């Protein structure tokens, strides 16, 4: 496992809420991601996971601090990243194969090669026969699969995933996670996954970063030493449970904190409206 592919240095990010207050989303974050590593970022909801991922992918600029990708500052959008969002972002007016070809089209690759690459990925992920289908004709799991191979098709050096499977049923999730494990074993691509599901994070990753409640920063880092190649059955191993318990305990502290914050602000607004 190679050099530090992504270097996050002292990044801060804040937003202005609707009532004009400054909300700190991320505070003084520092970490790195190595080439070929599978990293998961977990944390209580609202801790800024998605914000962090968007900054890493270059879709958002931090207010201070910097992100270096391959020792180069993220200034413009990095063109060799894959980004898979929580929402369904397939182009719904394109067929499955045309969706998979999109990234190659953007790189002006000729249609013959495009088709070949797309067809190959479609067959490898069990989507054969659906090439000419439109997204509305697919199940949720199949859509995610198309979105995933669409990202793989143009061979990005790093893939960011933002809770890609949160809306799926457990069986479909397991299947897709196995797909990802399998493809990671084959390609050893750098992958960064944001999730609220600890067991997903542990099963897939080499390292899990735990974020604090808002303003988010890295609280702890867990190296997952579980043997590879893995499948999702790793969840049944006793070591898995130990790691899960460790992280779970830490995480629940943060979740409680973030809930208390919510209650605090709820009480505050209530007393405000009472006095007014």
């Amino acid at each position, binding site marked *: 496992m190679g050099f530090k592919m992504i270097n996050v240095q002292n990044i801060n990010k804040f937003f202005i809420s609707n009532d004009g207050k400054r909300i700190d989303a991320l505070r003084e974050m520092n970490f790195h991601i190595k080439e070929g590593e599978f990293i998961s970022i977990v944390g209580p909801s609202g801790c800024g996971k998605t914000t962090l991922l*968007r900054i890493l992918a270059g879709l958002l600029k931090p207010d201070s601090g910097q992100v270096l990708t391959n020792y180069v500052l993220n200034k413009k*959008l990095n063109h060799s990243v*894959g980004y898979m*969002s929580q*929402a*369904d*972002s397939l182009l719904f007016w394109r067929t499955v194969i045309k969706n998979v070809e999109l990234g190659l089209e953007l790189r002006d690759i000729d249609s013959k090669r495009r088709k070949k690459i797309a067809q190959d990925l479609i067959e490898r992920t069990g989507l054969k026969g659906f090439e000419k289908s*439109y997204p*509305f004709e697919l199940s949720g799991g199949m859509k995610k699969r198309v979105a995933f191979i669409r990202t793989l098709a143009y061979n990005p050096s790093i893939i960011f995933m933002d809770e890609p499977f949160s809306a799926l049923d457990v069986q479909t999730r397991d299947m897709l996670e196995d797909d990802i494990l399998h493809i990671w074993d084959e390609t050893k691509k750098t992958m960064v996954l944001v999730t609220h599901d600890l067991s997903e994070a542990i099963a897939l990753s080499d390292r899990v970063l735990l974020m604090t409640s808002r303003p988010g920063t890295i609280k702890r880092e867990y190296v997952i030493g579980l043997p590879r190649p893995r499948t999702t059955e790793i969840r049944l191993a006793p070591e898995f449970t130990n790691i899960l318990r460790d992280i779970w305990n830490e995480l629940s502290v943060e979740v409680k904190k973030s809930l208390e914050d919510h209650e605090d602000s709820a009480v505050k607004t209530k007393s405000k409206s009472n006095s007014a």
Partner: protein
Amino acid sequence: MRLKLNRKVIVLRVLILAFFFLSWEIGGRTGALDPFFFSKPSDIVKDLYGLFYSGRIYPHLIITIQEMMIGLLLGLLSGILVGVALGKSETFARALDPVIMGLYAIPKIAIAPLFILWFGLGITAKIVFAWVIVFFLVFFNTYAGMRSVNQDIIDAVRAMGSNERKLMTKVLLPSCIPWILVGLRASLGSALVASIVGEFIASDTGLGYLILEGSNLFKTSRVLSIVLILSAIVVMMDSCLRQAENHFLKWMPRIRDPK
């Protein structure tokens, strides 16, 4: 199942139309409806036959369709262009908002005489009038389409390495197509209305002119013949548009033709 239902619908349609025209005809012949004011289907058919047989209708038909089509085309192109441009630049759109709303709020028919004043008695005035009307319909729809493009898709495609030009051709424009088609559908009838109104005000050819002439001479059959032709034009263009929709909106669950 579906086919059977369709046949039922067609039979019902024919029956309803037959009933309507038959009672009209009978009413006209028995004197229940005064043919002087209401004409009757047989007279209209006779008049239509005469118009087409003598060839008298063609110059009028061609002029009106020309006005409508050129107006439609110009309105469509400029509406898409301005809609996309303003959709891209929010600042500009907000700056122009009062101007556009102000122009839109003017009842166009009220200023139709102005167009005759500006562009003369010929075909130009009617084309520009139709153009203006179509422009607003297409523009508003395209603009709404641009505003409603899914941000997740834009993010994803940007992250895939798209530049702004490709984002436009591969994401923004295709997502606007359904909106543009809605604008276009509304425009078909409006463009025809614009050319007819223009012809009412000042012209010596065109279907609007024929209607005016017919009503001045108390030829109810003539007026209704032309009205029938107008309605046929819109129906035909609408069914062409439907074909186009079926082609462009294959990805929509609703629009797909029943198998």
